[in-house]
């Protein structure tokens, strides 16, 4: 019996697995789907955004006509928060009255992710690679963006339209930050070899303002998701998420559309 099992690779290759492989046709399908996805990412996002805009306006109009909407549910007020030096270009934080929203039950995975990421983003990072890079600002954004995107609970996206939109914006912002680490090191390695070559940190190009802003928006989105999911919408928010009907979502998307 043991002999048969030891020979299992040969037996399987000659048995049920015989003649079966990951076909060229399958490889071509993968390539085409990736090409298509890269090509249509922006138009799809814009279509979704436009559709949501129309839906939102339509709903608002109907509610107003039928008398359901008595007053603006968002009682917003501006106040100044402590910004982290010059990094934040948006010092105004919108405080949203939590009672305006129906408490919604979110998946625990999303809550855990938002809480963990919000803490991670607001604290200095304890990563040996970052220390090797002499706490380089852009590299810290790069490492943090990797965590934010990498740990996102993708399996929940299909369950929520809003979450899909938050994910799209986060995806674009994190991808941009990751891409910028590539561009600031491309002169040292044309295929991104120097992206994490911390010994060459002194030769990396400086972090630009756009990357700072992308990081700031990413941080704000994560904060707002955390408040929405873990604190029933009660707390300091930046108004940058669909989940909380944030009024600065369009500003974020305008920024995303202008990223270069």
């Amino acid at each position, binding site marked *: 019996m043991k002999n048969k099992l030891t020979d299992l690779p040969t*037996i399987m290759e000659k048995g049920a697995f015989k003649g079966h492989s990951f076909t060229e046709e*399958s490889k071509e399908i*993968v390539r085409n789907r990736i090409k298509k996805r890269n090509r249509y990412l922006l138009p799809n996002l814009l279509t979704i955004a436009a559709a949501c805009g129309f839906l939102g306006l339509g709903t608002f109009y109907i509610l107003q006509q039928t008398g359901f909407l008595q007053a603006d549910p968002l009682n917003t007020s501006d106040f100044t928060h402590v910004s982290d030096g010059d990094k934040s270009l948006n010092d105004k934080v919108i405080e949203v009255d939590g009672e305006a929203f129906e408490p919604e039950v979110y998946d625990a995975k999303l809550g855990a992710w938002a809480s963990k990421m919000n803490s991670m983003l607001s604290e200095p990072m304890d990563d040996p690679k970052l220390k090797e890079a002499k706490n380089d600002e852009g590299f810290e954004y790069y490492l943090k963006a990797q965590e934010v995107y990498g740990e996102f609970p993708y399996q929940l996206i299909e369950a929520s339209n809003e979450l899909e939109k938050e994910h799209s914006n986060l995806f674009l912002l994190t991808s941009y930050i990751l891409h910028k680490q590539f561009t600031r090191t491309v002169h040292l390695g044309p295929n991104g070899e120097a992206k994490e070559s911390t010994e060459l940190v002194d030769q990396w190009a400086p972090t630009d303002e756009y990357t700072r802003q992308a990081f700031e928006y990413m941080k704000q989105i994560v904060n707002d998701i955390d408040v929405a999911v873990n604190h029933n919408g009660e707390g300091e928010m930046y108004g940058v998420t669909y989940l909380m009907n944030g009024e600065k979502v369009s500003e974020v998307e305008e920024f995303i559309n202008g990223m270069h």
Partner: protein
Amino acid sequence: MEFITMKSEAYLDSKEIWLEKIMMEYGDRMIRIAYSYLKDWGTAQETVQEVFITCYNRYEQYYHADNFKALIYRITINRCKDLLRSALIKKVIVGTDFFTLHKTKDPSPENLFIQSDENAFITEMVLSLPVKYREAILLFYYENLSIEEISKMLKTNKNTIKSRLKRARELLRNILEGSDQYEK
């Protein structure tokens, strides 16, 4: 949005080269792993396609993974298990010939042996084991992974993996010894 459409060609190239490399290196093994769960070659191909697209989308994260082989196997296995749980697969796959073959009222080894040669018989016996035994046997004997590696991949205790391997061997022995074609 310029950055998405005009990403440096070098960057896209590096991602695409990596994708080609992993498809070439792991594609065939993954197809077989997927098949060992799904028992349908078409669904296995589709599942592995999805896995590669996921890898491409998470290039920045996966490219530097310490043990990419373990990672990609785990993704494939999890995806297969999700599929097996879904109602769709119950309709599509459980109705295939393979399942029908093993779900007959008299699935005696003799009947199966008549229909197939020795290798096909053994592989079908392995593939007819319950999932938890089948994956242990295949990862250990076919993929040549250690108990520790399997334990990490399946997020299951090492002793549990050992017990499953032992039980799987017993099950196979019972089946094979039941056949006149095999000696004890």
